[in-house]
């Protein structure tokens, strides 16, 4: 969808290496995400999806290769972490809302503390992002008063309030039952429709197929197969064939 993808990459990984002790988790991973693109990272458990995602926001330091995110050289030791993380939003499987703060306080904290936004402005912002995820009425609730799906949507809203240039999602629906999963996926779909750049690790193959501009299938720390969403229905490698064949392709 972009005319000139190379100059417009929001995220690019080139030959990224990462080991935990003697375990090589990323073994020369390369992929790029253009502005407005949705990239789905799929693969078996332990194939390195989460690690790859966490490297983008520098929750893991890479051993080799190059990562550029919104112009930040993430692989360099002198990367400005706080500047990087203002450009990148990340949402985890376990929501990680701050339990002692109301949903509103969860959302306004970072814009006020990091960007110096005035309190009244931050409150308006909280209303806006909560409306985006369909949770306006939960402004003054505490996280434990919300269902899992609502907590996850609130966590997405909290990230959105920092107005990131790219959002990272790590299996954000894995802890939810199908009904709650659907409400979270709907929010993510809307974000995609609004043009948000996203990288998501997901086990929801039907969802990936519907929303992703590009699929990256990881296998043993490598990008084993990549292409448009259609590779899920007509995979070329035996590993991806087996992966999508083992009941992963729900629609």
């Amino acid at each position, binding site marked *: 969808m972009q005319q000139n993808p190379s100059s417009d990459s929001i995220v690019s990984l080139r030959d990224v290496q990462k080991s935990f002790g003697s375990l090589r988790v990323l073994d020369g991973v390369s992929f790029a995400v253009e502005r407005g693109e949705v990239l789905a990272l799929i693969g078996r458990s332990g194939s390195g999806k989460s690690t790859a995602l966490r490297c983008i926001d520098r929750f893991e330091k890479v051993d080799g290769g190059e990562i550029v995110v919104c112009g930040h050289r993430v692989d360099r030791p002198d990367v400005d972490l706080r500047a990087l993380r203002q450009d990148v939003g*990340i949402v985890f499987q376990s929501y990680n809302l701050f339990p002692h703060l109301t949903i509103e306080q969860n959302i306004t904290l*970072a814009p006020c503390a990091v960007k110096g936004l005035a309190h009244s402005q931050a409150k308006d912002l909280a209303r806006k992002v909560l409306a985006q995820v369909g949770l306006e009425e939960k402004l003054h609730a505490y996280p434990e008063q919300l269902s899992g799906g609502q907590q996850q949507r609130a966590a997405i809203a909290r990230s959105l309030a920092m107005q990131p240039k790219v959002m990272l999602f790590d299996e954000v629906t894995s802890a939810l039952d199908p009904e709650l999963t659907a409400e979270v996926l709907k929010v993510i779909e809307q974000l995609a429709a609004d043009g948000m750049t996203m990288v998501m690790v997901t086990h929801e193959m039907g969802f990936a197929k519907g929303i992703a501009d590009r699929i990256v299938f990881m296998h043993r720390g490598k990008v084993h197969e990549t292409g448009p969403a259609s590779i899920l229905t007509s995979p070329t490698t035996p590993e991806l064939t087996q992966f999508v064949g083992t009941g992963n392709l729900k629609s």
Partner: protein
Amino acid sequence: MSLQLDFPAVLERWTSFLAGAVLTLELAAFATVLGALLGTLAAVGRGTHNALISGPCKVYVETIRNTPLLVQIFLVYFGLASLGLKFSAFAVAVAALTINVGAYTAEIMRAGFEAIPRGQIEAAEGLALSRLQIYWHIILLPAIEKVYPALTSQFVLLMLASSVCSQISAEELTAVANYIQSDTYRAFETYIIVAVLYVILSLVMRAGFWGLGLVLFPRRRRLGTPL
């Protein structure tokens, strides 16, 4: 054997008892506030990766937890005196009690910090909050909340232990009792009254901490979860 108690002879001195009780409460209040600060800093220090900070914090905590309070009080008292520094008995008592309770607070707070799920901190880092902001906004209150009963018990214990400050003639409740019983020769009655006063002081402190808990943890108030 007959037990004859003469409380009126002792209760005549009620103003002295009251003054002693107030001083004990003041000692406890100062040492609690300062000790909570010192202990929290020591707990943060012990958790850093910098051995130049975590090392001394560890030595402080372990030294204090393995020596008697009375010895610590004498060390502060005579230590300052031998440096030629003159402080009131009250100031020396506050300093010694602060140093003492700070070490116990550090251990309790460390347990509280460790009970904060790693994911909370990662989420905060992901929102670009600084190290200091994460401690202040994300870790501190939930950590205190997790250890609040242990923490407040420690401060009540400190108030009770402050009775040994009578040894450096701080005019707190036990010191007052010592004078009164030697004046009146009514030791048993005196210490019964003192015991009752300590119970009341404990209850006052516990009530204070209960009220403070309501202010510090609004979520518990809203959701009706007891501490």
